[in-house]
Each structure stands twice: as C-alpha cells, then as structure tokens.
C-alpha cells in the first residue's frame, strides 16, 4: 500500500510558493490590536464615509518581516528522526503541562487540543515525508535517518514556545487556516476565519440552488478579512456571477487578494478597500446578494476574551461597539440601497440576542425594505445568522 507522502494541497500550489515570500514581506506591520484606542477605531470605521480615514499608525519603524505560511515554504531543511522526536516529546510535555489551566482561566485550549495542534503543525512542517523511513529508523534503532522539513528544529522550538507561552494562535504560527475545503493564508492583522462562518456559504448555496438569477448576479462580502466567505461563494457560484470583497484593513485587503489569487479567482472576485458600503459605489441597486460577518463583540467583552483572540487578533475585526451592534446596524441600514429586488442577504451575529434584535429592527424600523427575515443556527445550535430578501 502506498502511503500518501504529503498533503495534497501542497501539490495544488507548487508554483506560487516562490513568490509568496516576497508578497508577505511587503505587507505592512499588523496593528497591535490591544494597544489601540477604541474610540479612534470606532470613529475610523463607521464615519469613514464622511471623512477619509487617517492612515493607520505605524507602530514599528521598519516593517517586521512576515515569513510565509509554513506549508508553502520550500522544504529546505533536514533533520534527523531523533531530533524531531526529541522536539516532539518536549512540545508534547509542554502542552501537557497546560492541563486545563487555559480553559479554566479564559476558555482557552486544553492539553488535548494543543496536542492535536501539534500534530497539525507536524503535518505542515514535514515534507514528502516517508513514514516507512520513520518506521525503519525506529525498528532498526537508527535515529540518524534524515527527513526534510519546512522549518528547522530551532524554529519549531521557538514556534511552540510562542504557542504555549504567548498564547499565539496556532493559525498564525502555521500561517493558515483550514476552512471548508479551503486552506486560507492568515497572519497577524487579519481575523482567523471561524468554523461557524462556514455556514454562510451553505446559506448562499441553498439560495442560489433555487434561483438561477441570484447565481448569475453580483455578490458582496463586506469585511472580507482573509477572503474566506468571498472565496467560498465564488467557488459555489461556479461559472456564473461574481463577487466584490471589501475591507477597511489594508492587511486584510492584501491577505484576501493573496488568497483570491491562490485560488485563481481574480477574474471572479474583486477586492476593494474601504468602509462597509462605500466600496459598493457604482453598483447601487444591482447587488444580488450581500453577506457580512462584521465585528459583533460588545466593547466591554473584549478584555475578557480568550487570550488567542483578545491579545492577538485585530480589534478592528472584533469590536462591534457598546452593544456589539454598531456595524450590523450600519449594514442593515445601508443594505437596502445596494440590493436589487428579490436579492438575498445574510449577516453573522453574536447570537440569539442580536439575531432577535435585528429581525425586529428590520421588520419594524425598516418596514417594506425586506421580506422573509429569519434567523439560522450554527452547528452548535446557537442562533447565529440573520437572513432575508430585499422586497420587490
């Protein structure tokens, strides 16, 4: 039986790996999420349609170099099985030492999850790795067998220390997130797409399977982050339709553009920088579907977030104002002018409370604009999404 020697996605993107490093090196430094002043962010976000946003403050004088995602790096390092196993058992005991302490303090990962991440890290790091070699090496007690890897062992020690000691998110460490059937590159400064959000693409899938007109239309993903939803939608649209993906964050714009190119969807997805509905100028009344997962966490909750999220992910992507609804309401108010009659919308929310509020708001405060306004649940059973159609 022939073992699979490397993850198949590496094979799918062999040619792009080379220009990746240049791309990622050009990115501006990520905003230091927790060092920002909320008021300033909120001003920048919501009111940028009135006044142009000031340039993001540069926190570092020279841009730190951002290494490319592990799985895209050339496997130029070699290491012995013995060194690898030594690192692995060190990393595993570090993970084990965490126990449930992160979970108890801020609902972070426990040892079991960290161990699973460790395995995924190995997946991304080891290249063309023939397990039978490892078998033989151990069976013959020959620890000097060499395997090739995408990071040297010293870096692996450093990365795993960051994971445990700084609570740096696993996805930033490996530089990617597996989301639906996609592998999206991510880095500090861009939100790591969440599993819940995968459902937005399913909701769109349901709608376009029933309405060819919508399938052929123009879709918009506002606040696209890594480009996750836009790419997911573009793929299910198939040969039809197109997508505009927007974000206010320049880092998000660059990462999203990168992911779009990686999936060769430049013809289908246009990435535009700007605040919420601003980048849709010119397509008013023409949009067949509008989706967004805007920041929805109430400002007061930001401080208590899981360390991976609160300390490392961009506040611009999380903080939805006092009730967490600033951006959602802004989108609801503006959506009707963009959407064409019969078009679809879906928004992700913080849960049942926001869902109910929005349904009520759209029905009573924006009468006549929308119909079939409903909520949909995520896989954990939490009411998570508000969906509906533009009247007409």
């Amino acid at each position: 039986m022939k073992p699979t020697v490397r993850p198949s996605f590496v094979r799918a993107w062999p040619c792009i790996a080379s220009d990746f490093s240049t791309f990622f090196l050009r990115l501006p430094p990520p905003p230091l999420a927790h060092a920002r002043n909320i008021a300033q962010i909120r001003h920048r976000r919501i009111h940028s349609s009135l006044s142009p946003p000031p340039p993001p403050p540069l926190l570092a004088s020279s841009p730190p170099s951002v290494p490319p995602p592990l799985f895209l790096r050339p496997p130029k390092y070699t290491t012995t099985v013995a060194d690898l196993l030594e690192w692995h058992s060190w990393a595993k005991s570090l993970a084990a030492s965490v126990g449930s302490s992160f979970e108890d303090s801020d609902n972070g990962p426990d040892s079991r999850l960290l161990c699973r991440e460790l395995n995924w890290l190995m997946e991304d790091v080891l290249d063309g790795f023939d397990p039978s070699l490892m078998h033989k090496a151990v069976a013959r007690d020959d620890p000097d067998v060499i395997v090739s890897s995408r990071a040297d062992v010293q870096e692996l020690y450093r990365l795993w220390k960051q994971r445990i000691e700084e609570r740096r998110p696993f996805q930033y460490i490996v530089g990617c997130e597996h989301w639906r059937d996609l592998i999206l590159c991510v880095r500090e400064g861009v939100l790591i797409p969440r599993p819940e959000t995968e459902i937005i693409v399913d909701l769109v899938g349901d709608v376009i399977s029933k309405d060819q007109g919508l399938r052929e239309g123009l879709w918009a993903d506002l606040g696209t982050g890594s480009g996750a939803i836009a790419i997911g939608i573009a793929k299910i649209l198939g040969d039809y339709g197109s997508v505009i993906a927007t974000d206010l964050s320049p880092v998000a714009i660059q990462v999203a553009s990168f992911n779009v190119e990686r999936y060769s969807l430049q013809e289908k997805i246009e990435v535009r920088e700007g605040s919420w509905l601003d980048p849709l100028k010119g397509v008013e009344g023409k949009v067949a579907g509008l989706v967004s997962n805007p920041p929805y966490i109430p400002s007061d909750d930001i401080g208590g977030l899981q360390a991976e999220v609160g300390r490392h992910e961009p506040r611009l992507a999380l903080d939805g104002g006092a009730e967490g609804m600033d951006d959602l309401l802004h989108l609801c108010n503006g959506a009707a002018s963009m959407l064409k009659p019969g078009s679809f919308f879906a928004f992700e929310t913080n849960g049942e409370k926001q869902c109910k509020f929005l349904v009520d708001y759209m029905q009573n405060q924006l009468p006549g604009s929308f119909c079939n306004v409903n909520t949909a649940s995520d896989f954990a059973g939490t009411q998570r999404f508000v969906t509906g159609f533009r009247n007409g």
Partner: protein
Amino acid sequence: MKISMAIQSLRRSLLPGTARSPPSLSSFPKLSGFAVSASVRPRAIVAASAAPGWRTGERTRRWGGFCSGNSEHDKALGSCFYSNGGAASSNYGGCSYLELSDEGLMKQCEMGTFKTSGPGGQHRNKRESAVRLKHIPTGIIAQAVEDRSQHKNRASALLRLRTLLALKVRNAVNLEAYSPPKELLQILPLKSTVRGSDCGPQIGPNNPKFMLGVQALLDLLSAFEGSVSEAAKLLGLSTGALSRLILSDDSLRLAVNELRASKGLKPLK
C-alpha cells in the same frame, strides 16, 4: 470537562461536490502509527464492536495513540461509535442507503458538533471542529475529529458512515433465486467461475466501490449463517480463495468474524 455534545437536526445540504475521495492520510499520523504499532495497515477503517476507546479508524486511533490517547475525552468520543447490535442483526435495506448521494444520506442524519461553554463565533479560537453524524434510520454513529476544518470532518464522518452502513446493516438475501450483484463480482478474484469477463479488473480496498461489494458479500455470508464454504460455492471460488479475500481487508475480516462469532463459529485467521 466543559464540553457537551449538542445534537441538532440539520436538514441542509452538506457538500458542494458529492463524491469525495477518502481523506488522504497525511504524513505525520503514520509517524504516530509507528509509535503505537508498526503493523497496522494505513487504510482500513475498523468497525467498532461497541468497545470503548478510539475505534473509529486506524487514522483516528493513531492520533489518539500519538497524542495522549488516554484522555478521557477521547474515550468518550470513541464510545459514541457503536455497532448497531452486531453485524447480522438488522434488516434495514442498507443497500439503498449506500446508493444515496452524500446529500441524501446527510438528510437522514442528525449532526452534532462539540460545543463548549461560551458564545462561540468571533469570541473563540479553539479548533474544536469535531463532527458526529447519527444516521437516524439505523442509529449508526460516525464521527471525525482529526481534521482542522469542520467541513472536512463532515466529509470524513460521512465516508465512515458509508463504511459502517456497509459493514453493519444486513439485507435479506433470497438464496433460491440468488445471483451475485455486480458490485460483489467486482471484488472477487479473477479466477472466480461466476465472475464473467465483463466485470473488469478486481476492485481492491482502495476503491470506494469496494465497500459496496463488501456489503453484498456480508449479506450473502449472513444468509449462510457465516459459512464461508457455502458462500464460496455460490461465488465460484474455493473456500481458501474466499477466505483469503476476506482476510485481505481488516474491516471485512473483523465484520466476518463478528458474524461468525454470533453463530458460534471459529474466527477466520
């Protein structure tokens, strides 16, 4: 442990594409495999006989083995994966289940994910993307936890469900009017005298259609109360040749031996 299982009926389409090849075994799990046992085969998805612990498949077991396989939670997950009352018990028309598209099969399932306390969504980064499918008509449960994407875990769980349906759901066979279905003929060695030349080359365990043949073979063996020699006669094979076929695949071997045990017969070795 703050984790609780939230089960929810989801009548939604699952996958944009239907047929999906088995999740490839990525490199490192095999390292873990060797750390646990060097003799396990890479492919087989082993049917669980209600034993606790990770029994959902070689791959999963390896993850478990490599990474604190003694965690209580892993055991709890494993025990979800039970046999539907033994290999030979039910009569649910499993054949038709396997003929369903992924979407159709998914419609017969309840899907559960693991839900931790807390609001989820943007609040949370936990990579807890385990998926558990319960096939409502049979009660068979399949799950997948080892991938990073919930989407892929759903696909793997569905694939496992197909295997389990083949292994555990028995269809009645009318021995008087029996002629082996094509799926069964295709997994037989070429020397079978009933096989006919239009069946093409022998399909092996790596082919997704292999499970369809396995299902038909188990149906036949079950009709013969576990007797390999009787089944071999009908299939135009020597008893030895059919035994070798059965022993060539772990999941098939386990299912046949479970059947034989339930009839008081000795296991094939």
